[in-house]
């Protein structure tokens, strides 16, 4: 009459459909329907409780709620304790410990393997570095020797050049005054050099001309 279906289908957790044949449950009067004629002028008597009774009821309920709260908390704690100490938990702990030991053993073996490899690698590296160092030392020694030889050559060269010492100075001055050096020269486009400041081209015959040498 009010528009709901007669039968319902129940879905259970593993999704199998079970048909329910129970009666339709009356929940409430539909919202749009009018008030029944027998109930239009009805005034329901309000239930009056004396104050002390209300207080007593409140006291009872408060005490009950308090005790229920504490009882629930106590049950919860007990369940936690039981979970920790129960057989299932113990077995779990044992299995976990075994697993831990196995993994630690595995880790140790792996570490050993890698340690051996590492040692070999380090040995090889050490040898290489040793060889490198030796080679570089030898090289440096050789270079030092070369350097020494070069320095000696240079020194001998310098010593062999005719420096003017304190004894030679007067002779050197006389020589210099006696042999003046003229740096003036001119070049020809044909590649001939004419030395001296005041030499003119006409005075020198063709055969005696100098050729400019690139020294």
């Amino acid at each position, binding site marked *: 009459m009010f528009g709901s279906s007669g039968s319902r*289908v129940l879905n259970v957790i593993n999704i199998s459909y079970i048909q329910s044949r129970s009666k339709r449950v009356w929940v409430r009067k539909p919202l749009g329907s009018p008030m029944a004629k027998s109930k239009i002028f009805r005034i329901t008597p309000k239930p009056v409780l004396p104050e002390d009774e209300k207080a007593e*009821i409140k006291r009872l309920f408060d005490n009950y709620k308090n005790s229920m709260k504490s009882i629930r908390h106590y049950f919860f704690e007990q369940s936690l304790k039981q979970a920790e100490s129960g057989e299932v938990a113990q077995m779990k702990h044992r299995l976990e410990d075994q697993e831990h030991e196995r993994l630690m053993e595995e880790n140790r073996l792996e570490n050993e393997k890698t340690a051996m490899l590492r040692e070999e690698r380090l040995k090889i590296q050490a040898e290489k570095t040793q060889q490198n160092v030796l080679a570089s030392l030898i090289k440096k020694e050789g270079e030092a020797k070369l350097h020494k030889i070069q320095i000696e050559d240079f020194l001998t060269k310098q010593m062999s050049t005719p420096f003017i010492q304190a004894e030679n100075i007067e002779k050197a001055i006389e020589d210099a005054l006696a042999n003046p050096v003229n740096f003036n020269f001119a070049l020809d486009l044909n590649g001939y050099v004419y030395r001296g400041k005041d030499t003119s081209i006409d005075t020198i015959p063709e055969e005696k001309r100098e050729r400019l040498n690139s020294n």
Partner: protein
Amino acid sequence: MIIMASALPTFTKIAKVIRLNRHGCTNRPFYHIVVQKTKDNQDGPVIEQVGSFDAMPNNKNEKLVALNFERIQYWLSQGAKLSDPVAQLLGLSGFLPNHPRTIIQAWKNRREPPRERKIEAIKGIAPPLDNPKL
């Protein structure tokens, strides 16, 4: 077609309740004390049955109640709520403190005069039916 809330995959937590499920026949109720999700109907899927309550007194004038205290304790520890009748029964059994309703009902019963009965009172282990409310 009405789909039950517990059948769809819910990711919100639905609270669990310990309450009475009416079984039995017409004019002969028999209640199972049962752990269910709040959203489920009375005749819907049940997580666990935790006792029974026969509302009709037997020929020795007893109303028989069965309660599995261990499992009730477990479900209370997991946060299940109690419906009023179940709380009253547990209080009367001694597992929990007495529900205020039992006490209130008791003093109201003592106040009112006994009403006229059509059926004769059964004599047996329990005291005779003086009290109108029982």
